[in-house]
């Protein structure tokens, strides 16, 4: 079981791509019916001021069928998933869900995954959690770990082989 099975950095995942394509097409159809470009999503967008994400434009581009351009754009990775666009859209369009689908599509198409996502995924595969127990410091610079604070053992998958077998099925589904 390797990370490549899940993220397709080697081979593009054609089945997963097909499924995502269907999802995006469905979103596209719904959007052409409902979004009237009021930009209420952008006015509340947490990533707008800082990183120039404009959810209403993402919706407009998808409506025009510029799927490849969107999948390859860095800006889709600036969403902070605050969910305000989904909450406030008077037409229930949910740009945040479009962005998730686009990012999933970028990964399934073999585009390089930015940042620490790969490391987190690797950690989930090996121990079930995004990171193992960390040493932290107190305000007075003493270092402490979980057990030293009298906290019970960490809850994580007990049978890692079985746990991986379950995740493997997600990777297998695409073939």
């Amino acid at each position, binding site marked *: 079981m390797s990370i490549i099975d899940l993220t397709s950095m080697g081979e593009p995942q054609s089945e997963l791509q097909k499924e995502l394509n269907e999802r995006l097409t469905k979103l596209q159809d719904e959007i052409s019916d409902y979004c009237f470009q009021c930009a209420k999503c952008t006015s509340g967008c947490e990533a707008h001021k800082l990183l120039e994400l404009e959810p209403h434009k993402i919706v407009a581009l998808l409506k025009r069928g510029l799927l490849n351009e969107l999948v390859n754009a860095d800006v889709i990775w600036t969403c902070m998933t605050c969910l305000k666009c989904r909450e406030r859209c008077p037409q229930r369009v949910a740009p945040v869900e479009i962005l998730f689908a686009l990012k999933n599509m970028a990964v399934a198409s073999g585009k390089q995954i930015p940042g620490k996502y790969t490391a987190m995924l690797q950690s*989930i595969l090996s121990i079930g959690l995004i990171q193992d127990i960390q040493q932290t410091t107190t305000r007075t610079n003493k270092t402490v770990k979980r057990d030293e604070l009298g906290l019970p053992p960490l809850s994580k998958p007990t049978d890692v082989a079985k746990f991986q077998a379950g995740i493997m099925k*997600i990777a297998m589904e695409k073939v």
Partner: protein
Amino acid sequence: MKKKYALFPGCLMPTEQYAYELSIRETLPLLGVELVDVEGFSCCGEPMKSVNQLLTLYLSARNLAIAQKHHLDMFVPCAMCHLALTECQHVLEKNPAMKERINGMLAAEDLTYTEKRHIVHTVDLLHDEIGIQKIKEHVKKPLQGLKIAAHYGCHILRPREIGRPDDSENPQKIEAILKALGAEPVYYPQKLDCCGAPLLANLPESALTKTGQKLQAIQEQQIQGLVDVCPWCHKMFDSRQTKAGETVAAKLDVPVVYLTQLLGVAFGISTEKLGLELNLSPVEKLQLEGAK
């Protein structure tokens, strides 16, 4: 009546945000909540949503199925985990085809999802399940004169349609709890602003700028401190405060505490047991040790 929940720790709280876990374990049992430690939980899947949403759904379903196996409802103190699990349950209940597909995968671990769990977060557990009256009865050292602001965290407020612990645009439950503890909650215009944490994986500088901007606004309004209820938000506002300050060219010194830590102080529990030494922001400014 005793309320019994499986404590779903997630990833961040049990591996580095120890103060949240310590203060939860100190305070909630006093209010009649029995927390059960269950073996075998994994990541909720939410951090992987940008990479593969099916993986998120699978991991959440897996955790719901484990809780089901133990016939327990779930107490989920992390906002991100709470959203992932609630959303997963919402999807599985509404989409039988997806439920069947996920259950097919869960069979690898001899797990199955068939029935809904009651999933609570710190805020609704305290406010709705335990209730303000009962909290008041336990207050031994009221936090008199403490003027403090609340940060809810995006993921416990939205999306409303799947059911969240508090109102999406005007949440007031933390304020109500703070008042019960004798403190004075302060309103500030940036209350609903994001902490920035979801960008930590791929745009850490921007994530910290977001944190810095919010803390700077709080500092400028001379609010005494900030209360939060999510290990991700706390990681940004407290653990990374110095770094966040650098991104906005400000020297930040805003005390940041978990709501459960304040609860503990008001209940007369020693600050050591509540992990207050683990807060890296200048919490000594709040003078909680000498709370009257």
